[in-house]
């Protein structure tokens, strides 16, 4: 084997490895798993939902009413924090935001692509899916992290388990048609 052939084989292997990486990475759809961004306010879900056992729906009341599990209005924080820890630097940030009429720029943790429709209330109210099934044990997280992949495979696994047919029976739990989510 001359050196040219050796270089050729080495190059081929490198190219194959690159293609392999490309295929593997290119197919991957869970880039955001374990995403744990720093938030403008050091809000701890562990303290609120874990230690103090505040119900998720107290703040994220939209989750049982509509499509979005809303981030709570700033005013809602002060329902408690008008009395509790009212002088902490983080709470002062909230009060200032309200005073200055400037919403807090939270960093979005869970992204959902535009071409898929997800309705929280459908899952919470009809599917009786608990929040932690998708979002992980939020009550143990200081800073919130994306615990699961939140990709189509994850959706479908659950939809299959919960029964896909009969399709339109109001008692049924889930559906398997593309246009359940993609429209």
């Amino acid at each position, binding site marked *: 084997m001359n050196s040219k052939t050796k270089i050729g084989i080495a190059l081929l292997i490198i190219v194959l490895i*690159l293609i392999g*990486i*490309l295929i593997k*990475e*290119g197919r*991957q759809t869970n*880039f*955001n798993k374990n*995403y744990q*961004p720093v938030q403008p306010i050091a809000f701890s879900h562990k303290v609120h939902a874990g230690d103090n056992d505040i119900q998720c729906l107290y703040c994220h*009341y*939209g989750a049982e*009413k*509509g*499509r*979005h599990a*809303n*981030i*709570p*209005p*700033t*005013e*809602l924080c002060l329902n408690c924090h008008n009395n509790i820890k009212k002088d902490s630097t983080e709470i002062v940030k909230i009060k200032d*935001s*309200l005073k200055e*009429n400037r*919403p*807090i*720029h*939270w*960093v*979005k943790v869970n*992204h959902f*692509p*535009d*071409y*898929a*429709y997800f*309705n*929280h*209330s*459908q899952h919470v*109210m*009809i599917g009786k899916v608990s929040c932690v099934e998708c979002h992980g044990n939020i009550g143990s997280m200081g800073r919130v992290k994306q615990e699961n992949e939140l990709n189509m495979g994850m959706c479908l696994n659950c939809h299959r388990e919960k029964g896909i*047919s*009969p*399709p*339109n*029976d*109001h008692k049924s739990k889930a*559906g*398997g*048609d*593309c*246009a*359940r989510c*993609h*429209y």
Partner: protein
Amino acid sequence: MSDKNFKNDYDAEYWQDVENKKLDSEYLKSEFQENELSFDISDSRKNRRDFLKIMGFSFSALPLASCLRIPVKKALPYLNKSETAIPGVANWYATTLDPRFGEHLLVKTREGRPIKIEGNPLSSQYKGGTSAFTQASLLSLYDSERNQSPQMNGNSTSFDMLDKSILESLEAAVKNNKKIFLYTPSISSPSIINLIKELASKYKNFEHIVFEPGVSSAIVMANQESFETSSLPQYKFDKAKLVLSFSADFLGTWLSPTEFTKQYSSARDVLENDNILRHIQLEPLMTLTGSNADTRITMSNSECEATLLGLIAYIQRKTGTQVLPVGVALPEFKPELIAKLGDELLNHKGQSLVVSGSTNTSMQVMVNTLNELLGNYGKTILNFGHTYYVGANDKKCEESFAAIKQGDVGAVFFWDCNPIHDYYNGKKLAKDLESVSLRVNYSVFPDETSSICTHILPTNYYLEAWSDYFKAPGTLSFSQPVIQPLFSTRMFGESLLHLLGKSDYFHYLKKHTEASFLAMQSKHVGFASFWDNTIHDGVIDLNYSSKSRGFNKLKVVQHFSKMVKKSSEGGLNFVIYEKVSMRNGHLANNPWLHELPDPITKVTWDNYILISPQLAKALGLKTSDLVEISKNSTKVNLPVLLQPGMNKNTIAMAIGYGREKSGKVGINRGANAALFSEFRDGDYRYEVSNLSLKSLGKTYPLAQTQTHHSMEGRKIIRETDIKDYVRNHKAGNEETVKLVSMWSGHDKKGQQWAMAIDLSKCTGCSGCIVSCNAENNVPVVGKDEVGNRREMHWLRIDRYYKGDDENPEVVHQPVMCQHCDNAPCESVCPVLATVQSSDGLNQQVYNRCVGTRYCANNCPYKVRRFNWFDYPHKDNYQRMVLNPDVTVRSRGVMEKCSMCIQRIQEARLVAKKDGREVLDGEIKLACQQSCPGDAIVFGDLNDPESKVSKLLKHERNYRLLEELNVLPRVSYLTKIRNK
């Protein structure tokens, strides 16, 4: 396919294209020739090197991209919790678009943004229907080229400064004994009418002048003469068994088309009643209404007038009631026709309705006379004489313009009208107005009139404003703001109050409503309850009755002699008409309206000269040939369009185009027809004679959405006459095909969606198309792309002609994705991006689609639309109109009608939350909801009680291209005429 297949009796009957009426195989082949396109598509083509560069870059970018996170996104919560606004949940508000154009409405808002307009089902008049114009009016809210801030002499300023300056100038005008004019369109808002009255009593020399050229002014003037009331009555087409219309486009543009379409369709519903309404239309050009008529006779305007006079004479002779002067000889005109029409009318005394679209007051007086002779008042025409309407008075208007010329005027105010463009001598008026020191403009959009004004006070769009409206027979409705004003604008009522030294129009409106209308109803006790409930419902029917007024015969005599004396017409007759989409050009900067194909001509983005095929042949013209039309010194260059059913000596042109001051969408599109209108015998006339037409030897391409129109010998349209239908419900729909399938068929369990479209009820008004655009984020592609046959509308309305081209019969057929059970598109998709759902819908999955376009090529109905480009949604205002529940499709993706799957899913969710099944009729698709004819029915075919399953079993039901055995879920009901 052999040529033999193209030639059968069926083809000889139906045709669609004037120049190619004779179907030869050469022409049919040309359908698929790309070089037939008159639009340049070369710059959209990339060469091979570009392709390699782009591919190389994308390929190397893929692994890079896969290592990156999606960019950081921010989520901003509300500061204060709103009681009503829950993110992701729509709120609905009732409001009203001025009855000049619109209806009683419901507006869907998401996160505070209006994203869809629907008809208010509580409205006893419009019953939930909306027009294309109303649907499109939503987009103009987000027009970033609206008047955005108050201006004085071209500089931005504040409303306070403007108010001060205006009041000072007004005082000066009063002191110098100069006149003050306020120009508005017709007003049906009781509170604004009252405010203007207060202004008139505060300022001497103040005069309110309604500038609204067109048919409404002639009708109002005629009612003034016949009944001494300048109001509009309520017409009841559903109470009539015979409608005789002299060029009144009452299904398209005449007075209140949505209301009339509702009535008309219900009166022609053969499922309810065998004795359906019969409609006769006499007109010079093919209007939408004429295209729906059972009997349509093409005649020029003067022939229409002669027919009307003949009819009156005939009926007074038969009934012995003398209204016309004795002994005057009538022009002898088609006595057999008149006898035939006259006998039909006499057979329907009190059950007929005669209407006219003429801008000639004399003609309208004669129409009133005929209705009076037939005893139609109180039966098919209701409630005259309410005072909550101020209509146009063309004579007063003309006098005011003369006063401006003489320099007697100290101040002019313009609200929502554009005389510089819509007046025949607008340029000269602009010059004369220079002598008026105070020129104030209240308008939403910049226009020719605002451009010559010294003070511009932008008004709120109707979706941002409070207002009240009164409509005969006694319906009160309100507009309420559904969004905070987007720009620095102020309601017109508020500005009027400031002229009176007061403020707070909302408070004024409430007080005025309490004083005027609380006593007229017994539904609610106390004003608080009345107000809250009426604002919530949007509309209330009052116990209102006006005293009946006697018919004034004396005036008829004057008008009669005026009409008989008419000088003979020469040259070409010219008619100015309103297009169903553009109407009078009020929303000239609205791309949805521009891209909406005209229901008859199927042309988008332009106006043109309509010309009969016979005249075109004589002059050697064909569609798209540029011509110059002129009268005296007025000249306009426009392309011609051959229109079957035109009177051969009449040409026509749509108003609302040729805007010189507008946004980038509306500016310099087409030409201004108002230049040819005339002031004649006290009216602004849209019927003009003595025009000349000259070919320029050039062409100007028109973007039509339908250019090849043959049915290729297939029974796509099935129709019959009521007499045959009564004998045999299957008449016209006898043909059945024996089908063999290689598929075993889908499992049809649970809910299975289906749609039925009643061709008898569809008038072709095109409201559904714009409604679909708004609901499904359908992009606007522009004229060139429409010309390249790349329009994106999910729903189209095919128009077919039948019979001779001098006076053809017309059929309208809405076609959207047919949701086939054996869908040909599904079997050719290499990536399974289009598949059948378990409830029978053909789903298009955008994120799977790679854009091979195989599906579109294999679709026999041509309903699939491909995104050739990323149609921009960059305008920060305009993008607010997007429906957040529907994906915005990107380039390279196929799309098509989804049967508003988002609405189905939403209704399902609501039903599931309530623990029940979805009810029949609970899901209303966007097209179905807005349809003023109730032609579209959607529901579950597995439910034997559902409306749609009953229609599917009906003898009239048929499916398009049944012989292909693709088993569409959309089916049609045969068209029934009443000849």
